[in-house]
């Protein structure tokens, strides 16, 4: 997967490159809008990550030019302004998504991945991670053959973590997906839910699957 990052702030560009490369992407970085446009024209990228304020040519100009050439490369906007006008303008010009600075890298990664999942592969009915088995259709979960007694929300939380095993999920994303709560809560509400889930799904077992990533969120994965 090849990603073009057009960003003039060197530190932002550097951590984007490193983070994306470590997550398996091939990354090219351009520091100017016109350079970025040139690269987007000559190389075929899977995703373009575009800052709005750029020297040479701003992000809007880049996306407009790219779209005029009928290239359907997904574009993710990074913007420091979150005025509705900016978003609408970006989306109208053909951007596929946007993120407001400051953003969490895990959030960016999730968005890039969802842009790439244009036609999502059919979800497996039964998800298996180590000795955990989540039967999405029948709303059942078990570990090492032992049935877990979960509330509907606990099951929803577990299946979300299992479906995206290995991916760090932010508290915001979790509350959005499981509780349909769409604002950023400051408190430890999600932590309490995860703690309850752990008490049922992790604590009785030797091998722990749900891990806390400090400052970022939670991940379900098998760690040796």
């Amino acid at each position: 997967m090849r990603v073009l990052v057009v960003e003039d702030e060197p530190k932002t560009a550097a951590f984007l490159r490193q983070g994306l490369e470590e997550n398996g992407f091939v990354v090219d970085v351009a520091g100017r809008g016109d350079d970025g446009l040139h690269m987007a024209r000559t190389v075929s990228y899977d995703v373009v990550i575009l800052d709005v304020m750029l020297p040479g040519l701003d992000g809007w100009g880049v996306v407009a030019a790219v779209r005029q050439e009928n290239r359907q490369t997904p574009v993710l906007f990074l913007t420091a302004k979150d005025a509705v006008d900016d978003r609408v303008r970006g989306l109208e010009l053909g951007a596929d998504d946007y993120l407001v600075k400051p953003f969490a890298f895990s959030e960016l990664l999730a968005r890039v991945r969802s842009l790439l999942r244009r036609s999502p592969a059919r979800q497996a009915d039964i998800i298996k991670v180590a000795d955990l088995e989540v039967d999405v259709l029948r709303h059942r979960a078990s570990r090492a053959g032992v049935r877990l007694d979960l509330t509907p929300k606990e099951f929803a939380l577990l299946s979300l973590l299992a479906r995206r095993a290995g991916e760090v999920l932010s508290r915001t994303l979790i509350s959005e997906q499981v509780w349909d709560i769409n604002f950023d809560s400051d408190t430890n509400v999600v932590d309490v839910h995860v703690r309850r889930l752990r008490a049922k799904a992790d604590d009785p077992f030797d091998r722990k699957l749900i891990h806390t990533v400090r400052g970022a969120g939670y991940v379900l994965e098998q760690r040796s």
Partner: protein
Amino acid sequence: MPPWSLAARLTAWYAGSAFVMIVSAVGFLYWVLGHSLDREDDNQIADQVRVLRDLLADRPDDLVGVRQEAEQEFQSRQHTQVYVRLLDANGRVLVETPGMAKLLGPDSFPPPTTDFQSGSDQRADDGTPLRVMSVRLSGGPPGRSPYTVQAAMDRHQEVELLAEYRKHLWVVLGAALVVCVVVGYQIARRGLRPVQIVTDTARRIDTANLGERIDPDGLPAELLVLADTFNHMLDRLEASFTRLARFSADIAHELRTPVNNLRGGVEVALGKARTPDEYRDVLASNLEECGRLARLIESLLFLARAENPQTQVVKDRLDVGAELATVCEFYEAAAGEKGVTLTVTVAGGVHADLNRTLFQRAVGNLVENAVAHTPAGGVVTLTATATDTSATVGVTDTGGGIPAAHLPHVFDRFYRADPSRSSSGGNVGLGLAIVKSIVELHGGNVHIASGGGGTHVTLTFPRKMTKP
């Protein structure tokens, strides 16, 4: 042309009205003087005519006697000489005072009357001003037609007197006009001096001395109201200015803490070589601080945007009860861990046009607050009721309540009823300010009541609305 100043208007009105009054008075006096001079002259002429009439009544045919009498009379008066002429019915001159013929011919007199009242002014042929009277005597000689008496009086002295009088009047009026303007201007200026004082004070006040006020002592009643209004405006300005200044200071303070943590943590970590775990710990701590900063910035931006009157929210028809249940489900675990029960009571179906995310955020903030301030064993109740026009959401807790002194301020930004409560729990004192902004974005209002038994917050939203 610029509009006249107030002083100029007052001066013009004052001077104008005073001058008109003076002119009227002087004109009236002049008219009275002229009129009484006329009256006096008429009386003298009439006296003379009566003398003739009496003579003729005694001796109807003694025209010589009449002439002697007339001449004698004429010569006896030095200053006010009255000429008389006696005509018969055919207009023939029977007797006349010498010199009268060349003064004014018989034909120049007005037609005779029968009373002795109506004298009139006439110019002699040589230009001498005359008062003339023409009378038909009733008692004429028996069997003959009645005599007519024409009398004229030289009144050049009176005319000169009046001319002199008029000359003085112009001088007096001219002087009066000047005095009126000068005095009027002085009065206007004195009257407007308090306005000048108010103006000077207003001009002097800027951000550095917003505390200064207009001194109401000695101001007239009308300006007292103005000064009072002005002072109240300054009170409000000063209050919002102070709030703004405090707000900036609060922001700086809230930013300082996480930045300080970041900096200190990194500096200490870089001080010597460490194990990867130690580095990981520092980085994770930094990430937490960054999250705190990002949330603070997001909240501030949200408040700033909400304050912009252009901001509009997209609304959907929401089942308020279902939304409360969602929020309740989300917070139930955290509340339960604290020993607080979270319940939802909704009477019937309550629907309203609301922005879902913002509504969740407002209710969520209130629930967080309520749970945080309710001791174990307490209950936090969410309610929803509807009227025809509005939907009301209530959040009630059984906590210790908020002291009355803090109640009016709890919706202010960065206001914390208990200043010792640090922001380490993510609480920076913006939660309730955001609740208020959200409700106001929907065109609703928020109300808080608190006592020993707990705190009760109600959010009232219009159920349907066109525009905020």
